[in-house]
């Protein structure tokens, strides 16, 4: 009796499943990956993996490209080209080619969601071209490209240019019929350096349009996403001596967006009233005169008007691309469910009316009074 217990304990330890150890030395660690849709319908996957080289500051990177009918198929083909097993558990940045996301984004992410080993914390971005190009491009002065891209996105998150998203966080939004994702949109500059171009707007699983960085900052504020370091530059005058004096740069200290929805049962139309209170600090205002009450009141008014216009432009753009980035559908689903049941939100969204009112209030104006 005792012997059988002991024996079964030993067997339990020794024979529990297969030995699924993955030695670090037998793994090719992928730090950044790009996925593209080729013209023939196959996927191309490009991964960058630094080659460890003891005592050297910069990492040499190996770029491997593989194609296949599915993402995993493409990864297998990469596997066949490397000595060690490719492992994406430490993936830092995932770049998606524009062609792919213009079609559908989900097929590229499916394997990442299913594979328990995936790095769910990796950042996702869209590149306006072939993602493989961005991954395989050797950047001058930036030997650690994966880290560079990740840092670029993180800084943008802090400045509220893009939303704080990763592979895991986009999944629920992707499957939510009442909200759409907005992803960072990267581009390659003329000097062969990647930069953040703005955000890519999605309609469901498909990319439908883009916003530039200034608009996307406003969009993030409207969504209620505020990073620690949000700056906006607006033109408030057009008659100053120097061009620079026409502009003011403000830092958002407090942002309270509210969105009220009104469903008119007779016409089945939706009125969205957007109200946004922004408390800001003037960071740069070459015009000066900040000590005068009048200037401040004037600035408040001008900024409010300017940003109200901006909000409306952004919303019309969103309607144009049918991208419900603000999650209006979600609210309708929750608070006006009968209406939601009745209509097809996809079709209805471009028709809703949007009125916005942005109130800017300057609460600080730097250390110079």
């Amino acid at each position, binding site marked *: 009796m*005792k*012997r059988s217990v*002991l024996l079964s304990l030993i067997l339990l*330890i*020794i024979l*529990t499943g297969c*030995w*699924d*150890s*993955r*030695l*670090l*030395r037998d*793994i090719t*660690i992928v730090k950044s990956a790009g996925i593209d849709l080729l013209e023939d319908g196959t996927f191309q996957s490009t991964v960058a993996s*630094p080659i*460890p*080289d*003891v005592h050297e500051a910069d*990492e040499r990177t190996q770029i491997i490209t593989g194609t296949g009918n599915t993402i995993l198929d493409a990864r297998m083909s990469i596997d066949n080209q490397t000595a060690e097993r490719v492992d994406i*558990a*430490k993936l*830092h940045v995932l770049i998606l080619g524009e062609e792919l996301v213009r079609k559908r984004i989900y097929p590229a992410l499916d394997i990442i969601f299913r594979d328990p*080993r995936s*790095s769910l914390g990796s950042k996702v971005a869209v590149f306006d071209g072939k993602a493989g190009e961005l991954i395989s491009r050797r950047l001058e002065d930036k030997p650690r490209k994966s*880290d560079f891209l990740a840092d670029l996105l993180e800084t943008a998150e802090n400045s509220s240019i893009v939303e704080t998203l990763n592979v895991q966080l986009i999944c629920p939004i992707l499957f939510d019929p009442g909200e759409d994702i907005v992803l960072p949109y990267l581009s390659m500059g003329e000097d062969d350096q990647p930069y953040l171009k703005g955000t890519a707007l999605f309609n469901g699983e498909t990319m439908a349009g883009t916003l530039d960085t200034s608009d996307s900052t406003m969009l993030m504020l409207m969504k209620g996403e505020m990073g620690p370091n949000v700056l906006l530059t607006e033109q408030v005058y057009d008659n100053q001596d120097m061009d620079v004096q026409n502009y003011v740069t403000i830092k958002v200290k407090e942002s309270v967006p509210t969105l009220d929805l009104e469903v008119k049962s007779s016409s089945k139309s939706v009125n969205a009233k957007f109200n946004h209170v922004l408390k800001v600090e003037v960071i740069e205002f070459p015009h000066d005169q900040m000590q005068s009450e009048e200037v401040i009141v004037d600035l408040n008014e001008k900024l409010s008007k300017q940003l109200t216009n901006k909000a409306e432009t952004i919303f019309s753009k969103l309607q144009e691309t049918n991208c419900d980035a603000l999650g209006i559908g979600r609210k309708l689903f929750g608070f006006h469910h009968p209406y939601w049941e009745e209509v097809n939100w996809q079709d209805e969204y471009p028709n809703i009316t949007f009125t916005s009112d942005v109130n800017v209030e300057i609460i600080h104006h730097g250390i110079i009074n």
Partner: protein
Amino acid sequence: MSLFNIFNKNNKRKEQNQQMIEPPDIPTFPVSINMEENRKYIKETFHYTEDLIEKKLTTQSGKTLYLIYFDSSTDKKKLESSVFNRIYELKKDQSLDRAFEELDSVKLFVLSDGIDELLAGKSLLLIQDTGYCYAVGTTELIQREISEPENEKVIRGNHDGFIEHLSTNIQLVREIINHPSLVVRYNTIGEVTKTKTAILYMEGRCDPQVIEEVQRRLSKIKVDKMITPGIIEEYLEDNIYSMFPQFISTERADRSAINLIDGRIIVLVDGDPTALLLPITFFSFFQSGDDYNTRWLAGNFYRMIRVISFLLAVTLPGVYISVITFHYEIIPFGMTFVIKDAVEHIPYPPLLEAFFMELTLELIREAGIRLPAPIGQTIGIVGGLVIGDAVVNAGFVSSIMIIVVALTAIASFVVPIHEMSVAIRILRFPVMIMAALLGFVGIVFCLTIYLIHLCKLTSIGQPYFYPFAPFSFKGLLNRFIRIPHTIEIKDSEKDNQNKKSSSS
């Protein structure tokens, strides 16, 4: 099956031990009127050993005396002053008996008892035509000086350490505790060595059941071997298969005294400078006299460091193995490639790598202890620096592994009690093997087993893992944390019972 037979055998042995207690093996021999018979008996008992000296003395009254003593263990000066001078000074009319009754002597009517006294270094005085003899205290004391124990140093506080002499040790304790409730009970154990042991406790503070139990277990000891605390410890232990030491052995008089006041028993063995403290709890091993002498915040800090270092010493190699074998994704981004660099060209699996380094380290440690101090240091340098560096350069072991092993080694030396630090070093190996098999799951598995064992373990019937199991908040404040001396936390009646008997 043979493994279980061990347990059965053990049971049988226990039964045998119980039967063996009573009969003394030397037959009694009353002191005979015939002097020749007495002398023959003594000489035959000692097999005519040549260091047994026999001196014939004659008093002024004409009585013949025989003084028998061991040349090797008798103090000649004492012999001269107490026996020879006394006999020569004897007046004719003075009674011999009166002279000896004033001395440090015992009157014996049974000669076989005298054998034991002789062995203890006393001299035996046989008197012509009488049915008794005297055992005179002439024992020579061999003592070294009282110094601070090498392996239990403190910065502040008492620097007295026990020595090899039992009564000196008891004196040291009595010097610290000047209280009538300090009780000493002597026992003699061992068939061959006849070692004198002493149990010390404070009457009224110590659980009488524990005293009784300790004496019962001591009386069971019947071995031919040298009586060392190690043997006594094994006989006193509740679970001899446990990897955790169930007693503290200390050479410090102040630690013993503090524990006595806390209601514990100490066992002292003649000829050995270590005292056994019992019953004890797991967390007592992490306390040092310094904790109570430094400021309480610092005391707590270093106590926490010791507890953390225990965890570190047990788990760190295991964690490293499982990280690079199973879970490399938990390494932060910045470090991934540093570690990948380090392990890239290591030919062996991490477990072998770790075993190689750990065993090398134990080797260096063991060699360092055995060698005389000047060479020991050389070994430390050669072993630590040269092997460590060369092994990394040769590519046998990764540099991270050296860091891990070095940290582990340092962590395992922090614990102030030697037995526990030995236990820690052994506890680490199962964790390493399980980590290599199952990763973090394995480590958790192993630690769970350790924890279950700790919770179940007892020391003389008292819970070993107190104040965590059974959990007691007040016990935690009193035992685990060192609160300022001025704050007194009153234990409730039930806790008081616990406090008396267990834990520190």
